[in-house]
């Protein structure tokens, strides 16, 4: 569904991503793993248009979206979360979710000013969808609460909710369990499974090997910006290059 072709990004001589190609298939959970500084987050930033590649292409359903602005890439059905939990922290939970749904609506300046029928319908639609998502991420009872009152894990779930509210086709999760303890990680893992069951394709960047191994269908392993392995968890686990990259220990931890 989403294809990355020969993607390269250079930052002043440093090659962050080097001739990377892979594909995200419809309906799967794909993980991108690799040691710190391997270029994982850069790949997400390149896919979503936050930064533009030096060369190479990002293609969704045979449509080349390389060089699109981030808000236009979102409109192709690609949502993302950020590594550091990124929320609208001055607003309430429901507001956060409604902002995420806005691009699906036709709400604009004039119909808001004149409270047209379109505006009324879509305002209600946005509210209902936001509530539905709040339910899904387990924050329905906190919909009116301000973000600052949520726990760390609730904030992570809300961040995923903001990505999900507009019913994306692909959700890119950048370390969804970073900084969480064991039980919380398990809850987020179960949550990611439910997202896939809903019909959204998931691509996840993670460090926690044990979580990844039990969750995903395929893994792409990066090191120094290059793909060193790709395949099912079982295959990747036994790959010599991967074991070396992780200094032997972590891959089967």
């Amino acid at each position, binding site marked *: 569904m989403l294809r990355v072709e020969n993607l390269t990004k250079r930052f002043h001589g440093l090659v962050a991503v080097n001739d990377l190609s892979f594909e995200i298939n419809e309906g799967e959970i794909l993980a991108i793993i690799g040691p710190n500084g391997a270029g994982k987050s850069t790949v997400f930033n390149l896919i*979503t248009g*936050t930064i533009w590649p030096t060369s190479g292409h990002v293609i969704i359903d045979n449509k080349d979206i390389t060089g699109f*602005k*981030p*808000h236009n890439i*979102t*409109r192709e059905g690609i*949502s*993302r979360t*950020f590594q550091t939990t*990124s*929320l*609208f*922290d*001055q*607003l309430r939970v*429901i*507001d956060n979710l*409604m*902002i*995420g*749904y*806005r*691009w699906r*609506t036709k*709400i*604009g*300046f004039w119909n*808001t*000013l004149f*409270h047209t029928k379109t*505006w009324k319908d*879509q*305002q209600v639609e*946005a*509210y209902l969808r936001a509530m539905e998502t709040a339910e899904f991420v387990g924050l329905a009872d906190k919909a*009116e609460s301000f973000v600052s009152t949520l726990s760390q894990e609730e904030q992570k779930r809300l961040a995923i909710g*903001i*990505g999900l509210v*507009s019913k994306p086709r692909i959700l890119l999760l950048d370390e969804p369990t970073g900084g969480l303890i064991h039980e919380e990680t398990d809850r987020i893992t179960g949550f990611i499974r439910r997202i896939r069951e809903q019909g959204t394709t998931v691509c996840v960047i993670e460090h926690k090997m044990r979580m990844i191994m039990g969750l995903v269908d395929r893994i792409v392993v990066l090191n120094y910006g290059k793909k060193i392995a790709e395949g099912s968890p079982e295959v990747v686990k036994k790959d010599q290059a991967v074991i070396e990259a992780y200094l032997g220990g972590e891959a089967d931890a």
Partner: protein
Amino acid sequence: MLTKPIHTKIAYIVLLAAALLLPFFIPDRYMFQVVIMSIIFAISTSAMNLMTGFTGQLSLAHAGFFGIGAYGVANLTKAGISFWIALPISALIAAFVGLLLGLLTLRTKGPYFAIVTLCFGVILYITAGNWIEVTGGHNGIFGIPRPSPIPIPFIGAIEFWSQTAQWYLVLAFLLLTLFVLNRLVYSVFGLGMMACRNNDALAESVGINIFRTKLISFVLCNFIAAAAGGLYAATMGAVSPSAATYLLTFNFLIFMILGGMATLAGPVLGAFIIPIIMEALQFLGDYRLLFFGALLIAAIIYFPQGVYGGLRQLNQKVAAWRQS
């Protein structure tokens, strides 16, 4: 979505009634002039609040656009065009200038945007002082006609010679401004603006065109500022470059910060309360600025959300007391 508690509604109704009855209680013409100015400044400050408070971009060209409206109405009405046509034309001119400025400057953000707009504001001020054919130079323009009378069948016409009529005129414009801003801000559209203020990287990644959102906000902000400027020209009967100076921008900024940023009531409260404080401090002469500076610093430290924030805290206490 959020319904206001009953005592808040009562407070608003009392305020509106007080505003409507004010002409019968105002002690003298001077005070009347001060409160009419306050309303005009409240309109302008509300507009600034849309861009700065809700959308999060500090525009320091604000008084420049106020000036465009004032000089626009002054010139057009002196040329014999009705005030009711001159006002929207002037506001549209300002909106168009705002559009061009926004297209150029909204690529910058934060302090850079503030500096670029400050420079533009200073340019407009200098233009006002030197483009003698249009602005009358530093002397300004005198003898601007009052707003044209509104004919009403069978009754006659509403004239705008008296201060009372002018008061109701500017009050109507303030209510219209607040009505429009209320609709825009408290909707999904307004949430998009607040998203730009709060976290632009995330806003962009959830599909909000932040450049477009800021541009709409900026154009509307300047449109309203110019309308306020036009009202200023028509009610004062004269304009000078002081209606376009960056010092006036900072007055608006102080009204907004002390009144309460990113709230609809805040700028209105600020535009009323601060001129009254300044009047009350007249006896201190130039030292009042010193006092005022200290007040400003104290307010920012202890009441970062301004007078309105303080009132809201009080309101929450009332709500808690009513529940217990």
